[in-house]
C-alpha cells in the first residue's frame, strides 16, 4: 500500500476552543504511510488548561446528569473516524464500530448507576448521598481540584468512561489522550455541545518525542489533585509515574583526615588524588522522583483475565468465547480458561477459533485483526519454548502483523501462557476435575495483585454461591465475558467512592 497521508488533524480542546498551534505526526503501525497530524500542547496551552480547570463550574448532580444525557445524544462520528481507529489499533472494524456505538450508552448509564446508589433522597440536590437510615446519610463531596487523565490507545471508550464518571461526580478534568484514540475529541465535543462549562472538560495531546514532554506531563501531574491512568503498573510506573532526578556524585572520604566542610582542603585533596584516585572513591547516584506522591491516583492492577467454563460448548459459548478473547489487546481480554470436567471442549474451541475470519481489519467480515509484530514475535518464541509441554492449535503467522488465533492446551504447569498477559489472540486452556480445582488453578497463576476479572460460564447458580468468593480477582462476571465494561466500576475501581470525600450527616 502506498503512502496515505490524510488531512485529518486532531486539535487541542481547551476551554471549548479547538486549537492547533503546532502539530506532530501520528502514524499507523499497520498501514504503511498512513499518517495524520495531532496538535501538540505547549507549556502555555497546558497552563491555560490548568487555569480553566481550576475555575470550572461544577454544577449540581441533577444538572450534570442531564448534561450527560444531552452529550450522549450529541455524540456523533463518521465512518472515517471508525476507519481511523481501525488503522491505529489494528482491531477489526466490526469490533471498533461496536465500541463507538457503546459510547453514548456509557454517557447515559454512568449517572444512572451512580445515582441508583447515592440517590440523594431528601437532601440538597447538588450532592450525591447514600441514605443509610431515615436520619443518617453519607454525602459524597467531589474531590477538590481537577483530574488529569491519561487515556489509552487501545479502547475508544476510555475517554467516555473517564468523562462520564468525572462529570457525574463533579470533577473537572483534562484528558491527555493517546494519539491512537480516535474517539476522544468527539466525546469532548459532545460534552461541550451539551452546555457544560467548557472549562470542565478539556483535551490535549503531548508529543512523546518532544524533549519537553516529560516536563509538561510532570507539570500537569503537579497541578492536578487526581491522576487517572490506564495500563499495567509496570508500564505506568516507567512512563508516567517516575522520572529521574539529575544524577549526583558522592565522594567516599573514609579514612581521610580532613574536615569535609573545608572546601580548600577538599580541593587540595582532589588535586592530590587526581583522576585515578577519584575513580576509586567517587560514586554516581541516580534516583527517581515519584510524581504521584500526594495525589489521588486511579489505576488498575494487572490484567491477565481468566475464565472458568463448564464443558458445554454451545453457540452461546462461542459468542462468549469470541467476546472474551476477540478484543485481544485490552487488559480485560481473557487469556486463560479452566474447563471443568471437560474432555472435548478444547477441540471444539480450536475448531471455532480456526473458523474465525482472519484478514484486513478494515474488511467488515474480519474477526481477527492486526497485532503488534513484537507481540507476535514474543508469542512465537513462547510457542517454541513450550512446544513439548503443551498442545498448540492454530497460531500460524500470516504476516508481520497477523497470525491465526492460538489455543494452547496443557495439563502441565506452563506459566508462560497461564500467568501472563500477552496482547494477542491467544488463549491457554486446562481441564479441571471440578470448579474448586478450576478456582485453585486460576489463583495459582495469579500474581500478588488480583486479576482484573474472572468470568464464569455455564455453571449452575447454586454451585457459584459456594465457591467463587475465593477467586483472587477484583471482579467476577457470571455468563459475561471479562471484556464487559462496568461503567462506574471499571477495573475494580469504585469511582464514586474513589473520587469523592464521604461525609456523614445525621439528623
Amino acid at each position, binding site marked *: 500500500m502506498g503512502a496515505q497521508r490524510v488531512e485529518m488533524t486532531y486539535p487541542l480542546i481547551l476551554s471549548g476552543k479547538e486549537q492547533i*498551534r503546532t502539530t506532530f505526526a501520528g502514524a499507523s503501525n499497520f498501514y504503511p504511510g498512513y499518517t495524520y497530524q495531532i496538535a501538540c500542547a*505547549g*507549556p*502555555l496551552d497546558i*497552563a*491555560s488548561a*490548568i*487555569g*480553566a480547570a*481550576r*475555575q470550572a463550574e461544577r454544577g449540581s448532580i441533577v444538572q450534570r446528569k442531564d448534561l450527560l444525557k444531552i452529550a450522549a445524544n450529541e455524540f456523533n462520528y463518521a465512518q472515517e473516524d471508525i476507519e481511523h481507529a481501525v488503522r491505529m489499533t489494528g482491531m477489526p472494524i466490526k469490533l471498533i464500530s461496536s465500541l463507538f456505538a457503546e459510547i453514548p450508552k456509557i454517557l447515559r448509564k454512568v449517572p444512572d448507576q451512580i445515582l441508583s446508589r447515592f440517590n440523594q433522597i431528601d437532601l440538597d440536590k447538588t450532592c450525591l448521598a447514600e441514605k443509610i437510615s431515615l436520619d443518617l446519610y453519607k454525602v459524597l463531596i467531589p474531590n477538590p481540584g481537577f483530574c488529569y487523565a491519561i487515556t489509552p490507545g487501545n479502547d475508544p471508550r476510555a475517554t467516555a468512561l473517564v468523562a462520564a464518571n468525572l462529570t457525574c461526580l463533579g470533577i473537572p478534568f483534562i484528558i491527555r489522550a493517546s494519539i491512537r484514540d480516535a474517539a476522544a475529541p468527539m466525546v469532548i465535543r459532545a460534552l461541550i455541545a451539551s452546555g457544560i462549562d467548557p472549562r470542565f472538560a478539556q483535551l490535549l495531546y503531548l508529543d512523546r518525542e518532544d*524533549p*519537553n514532554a516529560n*516536563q509538561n506531563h510532570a507539570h500537569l501531574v503537579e*497541578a492536578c489533585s487526581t491522576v487517572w491512568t490506564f495500563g499495567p503498573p509496570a508500564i505506568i510506573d516507567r512512563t508516567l509515574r517516575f522520572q529521574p532526578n539529575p544524577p549526583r556524585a558522592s565522594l567516599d572520604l573514609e579514612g581521610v583526615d580532613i574536615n569535609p566542610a573545608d572546601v580548600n582542603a577538599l580541593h587540595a585533596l582532589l588535586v592530590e588524588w587526581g583522576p585515578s584516585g577519584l575513580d576509586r572513591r567517587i560514586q554516581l547516584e541516580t534516583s527517581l522522583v515519584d510524581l504521584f506522591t500526594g495525589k489521588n491516583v486511579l489505576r488498575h492492577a494487572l490484567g491477565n483475565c481468566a475464565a472458568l467454563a463448564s464443558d458445554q460448548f454451545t453457540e452461546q459459548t462461542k459468542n462468549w468465547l469470541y467476546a472474551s478473547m476477540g478484543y485481544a489487546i485490552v487488559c480485560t481480554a481473557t487469556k486463560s480458561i479452566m474447563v471443568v470436567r471437560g474432555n472435548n471442549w478444547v477441540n471444539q474451541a480450536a475448531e471455532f477459533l480456526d473458523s474465525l475470519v482472519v484478514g484486513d481489519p478494515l474488511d467488515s467480515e474480519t474477526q481477527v485483526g492486526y497485532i503488534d509484530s513484537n507481540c507476535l514475535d514474543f508469542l512465537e518464541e513462547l510457542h517454541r519454548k513450550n512446544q513439548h509441554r503443551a498442545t498448540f492449535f492454530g497460531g500460524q503467522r500470516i504476516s508481520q502483523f497477523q497470525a491465526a488465533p492460538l489455543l494452547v492446551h496443557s495439563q502441565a504447569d506452563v506459566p508462560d501462557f497461564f500467568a501472563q498477559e500477552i496482547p494477542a489472540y491467544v488463549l491457554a486452556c486446562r481441564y479441571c476435575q471440578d470448579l474448586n480445582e478450576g478456582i485453585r488453578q486460576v489463583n495459582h497463576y495469579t500474581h500478588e495483585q488480583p486479576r482484573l476479572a474472572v468470568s464464569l460460564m455455564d455453571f449452575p447458580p447454586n454451585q457459584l454461591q459456594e465457591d467463587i468468593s475465593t477467586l483472587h480477582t477484583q471482579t467476577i462476571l457470571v455468563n459475561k465475558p471479562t471484556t464487559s465494561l462496568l461503567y462506574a466500576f471499571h477495573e475494580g475501581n469504585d469511582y464514586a467512592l474513589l473520587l469523592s470525600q464521604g461525609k456523614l450527616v445525621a439528623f
Partner: protein
Amino acid sequence: MRAPADWPDILSVENNFLLLEKKILDGKIRDYHQLRSEVFAWHGWDLISQERLFSMILPFLQQQVQRARRAMPGLYADHLEPVRPESIHTQNDWHRVPILVKDDELSQGLQGFRQIVNEDPLLLRPSDPAAQAAVAFRSGGSLGQATPTFLTLADREREIQAWRRGHDYHGLIPGDSVLYTYNTTHKGGQWMQESLWTHGTNVYLRRPEEGPLQVLHNLRAFHVNVLFTVQQPYEAMSRQEKAAGINLHTLIQSSLENPDYLGVLLPDSQGQKQVDFIFLGGFSIVPYALELVRNYLTETPVATLLGSSEAIPQACSTNPQLTPTGLCHYNNLHLLQGPHFIEVVKPDGDAWMPVKKGEQGLLVYTSWARDGTIWIRYAPGDVATWLLDEGECPCGIFSPVVTDVRRLDPAGRSDLILYGCAAG
C-alpha cells in the same frame, strides 16, 4: 502612560538643545565634561539630521580619539597611530578611522583585542584622572572570556539620562509604576532602575527568591502598569542557569494557571488588565516572545531598547500604540545618538562607510562622552540592516531605523547570541 494624542509633545527639538548646539558650534564647549548629564535626556539628539549631529559631536570625537591614544595606549597606540584627531573635520574623515574589534576578523585584516585584554584587563581602563573611581562591568563573553568596560559615576549619569529618551518613546511618564525583573547585579539591571527612577516613575524590583506568582502578586499590590521583563525563550528553559529567572513566558504561564491573577498581566473576562506596556529589552525581541505577544498580549504594546555592558543606549523601538503609523515597532529600532555615536558600516577601501538602505553592516559605536573605557568605532560583533533613512519613519522621530540586529557569530553559536545574557 503617555496618551497617543500627546505623542507629538516629545517630537520637538528643545530650545536648550538648540542653545547647546550653538555653544558647541561657536566653540564655547569643546570638552564633553562641560555637558551636564541631563542634556542626554533631550530628544533633540534623535530629531536632527546626521550632518548636524556630526557637527555637534565632532569636538568630542576628536577629544576621545586624542584621549584614547594617550590614556589607553595598550589598545589604541598602534591602532590609532595614523589618525590625527585634529585632522578629522568631516564625516568622510571619520569614516577612515579604523574599526576596533574584540575578536580577530581576518577577512578584513582586523586584529581583535580579546587576547591582550584577557592577559591585562586594565588595558581597558584609561590611565588619566578622568577614569579614576570606575566600576568594571564585564560583557557576557558569549564568544570567549568576558572583557570589562570601566565606567565612572558620571558615565552612569549620562547613560541613565540617555535611556530616559527610550522611556519617553515607550510612553512612560512620571507617576507610572514600573516593576522590573532584571538582575540588578548586571549593568542593564542597575541602569534600568536608576533611569526609571530618574524619569519620575515608581520602581519596584523583584527579589531573586520571588517566583512568578509573587511577581504577579506584587504587580497587583503595587498597582503596577508597566512591566520590564526578560524574554527568555521557551527553548532555553531546559538550561538550568536560564530557567531560574522570571521572564515573560513564566509570567504568562502563571497568569494562565492562576486565574485569580487574570486582569493583571493578561486580560480578565471583561478584557481589562492592569499592565499597559511591557519592555522586553537587552537585544532583539526573539521570535518566541513575538509569538507570546501575538497569542496572549495582543492588546499590550511591547518594545525594546538595544544596549550592552559597553554602551547604553544604542537604539530602541517605540510603543506601537503611541506610533500606530510608525515603522519602528518591535525589532525595528531608531538609532539613539548620545552619549554614544552609533553607526552601521561596511568596508570600502581603507574606510568603513555607512551602509545604504536595505544593506547589512557592522554596528559600531564611539563613546564620545565617557570617562571610563573609551570605545572608538568599536564593533562588538553585532550586525544590523539599515531599514529607513533619517526622516523616513512616519512616527516623527528623525533618526534612521535599523532592523535585524544580531550577533555576527562565525562559530555558528547563534543560540548563545539569540538568547543573550538576559537571565533575570
